[in-house]
């Protein structure tokens, strides 16, 4: 076990993957000498050389399209998209090629591509640097989508994503890059819990908060604050956004009967909508109140000084918990 930041854990995962499998290559803007703008690939160019840690021209469609060709040749490309907001130029290659090629070829051509995306807001950044585009990929069949919330998962899930024969969109919450945690670098990959499983990060009995990424920490803080007020909240970290581990989610919901789903991304047709629609379908008779969403507003990401009015925080989660737990307020709520 070692204490390390999420950023270092991700770098360790890349290093181990490069060392384990000569077919693993990294592609991205500034990932070489600079080590990436977040220094995730720091030191990897020196260790593995420019043939495996490849600085690319400044074109995201080009990067992902090139990765597709490398995958067809039997490589396992790991792409770094510099910031969340820069994945859109690659959208066509991701949606029409990466997601569909295995299906198009009746399963004969795998697409073992991992696309890492530094992700989300809360860091006071400029426009296009705080996006939460995960729902676009969750809605795209053929992709797997992972979002990590702590150094250990960052390490393990990234290695699993790279080892997977399916394409994985891998979301790394930027504002947790410097957050530290214990990381076990030793357990063999085969013994680790699969990246597809959700995790109950805090047990509770009154309501379930379902979330992922940076918002897990916020949810835990909310649960602590709620405990002080005598309310027991269970917190679930989805980890895998596609597929979603409804086994774990539903087991919790059937115990608590009340649910809040939280994410930074916009609300309309977001991941929370998916979770709530599925929970409602699978757990209807257990629900004691309408599941509620706490999300970013349906607005373009606002200027940095205003982001605190956009991102869900502890208070907004507790507000939703109050509403989901207070049956009278709930009835008022639905009437508006």
């Amino acid at each position, binding site marked *: 076990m070692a204490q390390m930041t999420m950023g270092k854990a991700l770098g360790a995962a890349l290093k181990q993957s490069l060392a384990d499998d000569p077919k693993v*290559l990294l592609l991205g803007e500034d990932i070489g000498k600079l080590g990436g703008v977040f220094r995730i690939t720091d030191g990897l160019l020196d260790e593995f050389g420019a043939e495996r840690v490849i600085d690319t021209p400044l074109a995201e469609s080009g990067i992902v399209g090139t990765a597709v060709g490398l995958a067809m040749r039997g490589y396992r490309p790991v792409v770094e998209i510099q910031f969340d907001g820069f994945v859109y130029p690659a959208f066509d290659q991701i949606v029409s090629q990466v997601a569909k090629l295995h299906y198009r070829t009746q399963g004969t051509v795998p697409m073992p591509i991992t696309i890492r995306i530094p992700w989300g807001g809360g860091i006071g950044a400029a426009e296009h640097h705080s996006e939460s585009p995960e729902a676009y990929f969750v809605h795209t069949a053929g992709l797997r989508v992972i979002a990590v919330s702590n150094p250990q998962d960052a390490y393990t899930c990234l290695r699993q994503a790279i080892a997977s024969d399916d394409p994985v969109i891998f979301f790394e919450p930027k504002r947790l890059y410097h957050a530290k945690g214990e990381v076990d670098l030793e357990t063999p990959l085969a013994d680790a819990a699969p990246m597809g499983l959700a995790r109950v990060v805090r047990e509770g009995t009154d309501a379930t908060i379902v979330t992922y990424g940076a918002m897990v920490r916020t949810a835990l803080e909310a649960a602590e604050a709620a405990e002080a007020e005598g309310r027991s909240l269970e917190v679930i970290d989805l980890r895998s956004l596609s*597929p979603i581990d409804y086994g774990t989610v539903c087991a919790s919901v059937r115990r608590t009967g009340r649910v809040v789903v939280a994410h930074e991304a916009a609300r309309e047709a977001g991941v929370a909508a998916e979770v709530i629609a599925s929970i409602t379908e699978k757990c209807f008779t257990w629900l004691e109140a309408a599941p509620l969403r706490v999300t970013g507003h349906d607005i373009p990401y606002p200027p940095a000084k205003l982001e605190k009015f956009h991102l869900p925080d502890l208070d907004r989660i507790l507000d939703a918990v109050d509403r989901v737990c207070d049956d009278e307020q709930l009835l008022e709520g639905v009437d508006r």
Partner: protein
Amino acid sequence: MSTHLDPITVTGIGLDEPAGLIDAHGRRRNDTRLTPYVADVTSDQLLSLLRDMIVLRRLDSEGVALQRQGQLGLWAPCQGQEAAQIGSGRALNSDDVVFPSYRETGVMLARGAQPGDYVRMWRGEEGAAYDPAVMHMAPLQIIIGAQTLHAVGYALGILHDGSDQVAVTYFGDGATSQGDVNEAMIFASSYRAPVVFICQNNHWAISEPVAVQSQHPIAGRAPGFGIPSMRVDGNDVLAVFAATRWALEQARGGSPAFLELVTYRMGPHTTADDPTRYRDPAELEYWRGKDPLARVEALLRAEGALTDEIAAGFAAEADEAAMQMRAACLSLTTRGPLAVFDGVYAEPHTGIDEERADYARYLATLAEA
């Protein structure tokens, strides 16, 4: 008000005569750059190129017929482009890897496609027409230009493996406007990827004349990216063969290369298209005069290599190939309902398992009813 919003529709073909080795009357021409690349090509080899072109034209018309008869959902005819496709396709090594668009029936032929391979996708049975590993050919690509980046990535893999293969990508004149094709040239240039870009400038992108995309010879773009290029008469099978060898030589020597094959789409864009809405019949007539089959036939007859008997043999082979394609088409079967879930993921996936199970449950209710 300016009328510049209407792009000029005079193509650049007259501006800059493309390189060739056989003129429109079937006479040999010399070309200092191209001739050396076909010094070893015998009459027999030329005959065999002609044979493929004849078979291709026959397969192509059979494809159209099958579509008209409701046996195919769609067909993208390549009539007029036989020299471009056969001449280039036949110049490749068998382990070079092709990244085609949807119109490359002739390249499939040159790669040894089986009868069913031509029709499986167009009939709507499967996503890919053939097994990419067997054909050394990526699936036909419908998203314009996307395959050019795959070729570059594949070529990076070739470099990495230290192999002397080449990735060869085909695309149209329209495709040159897509960002992806330009990015592909940039990536290829920066990494010196062993990739050959083959643009079949067939003068049309559906209803848009090439001048909407480019008012200058397309081959002129590549050098700006640091990629040597050639503009070749795409209806001259020998010139195409020569130029492709030149391009492959560049690629095996450490530089990408670009070919613009100046040709013409004699048929509709696809069987869903009606070119009479946008195309002057005189233009078609003009290009009939440059038919890629006619001129090499004329040459081979003039040189005594092609006899009526041989021609009849080719025609019979072509009919036979078409019959086999038709038979293969008619014998294709459609997979069952649950097959829609096959191949989405390479590894187990709880989401798809659940959906498959639910759909099976539903199908069972239908069976009950």
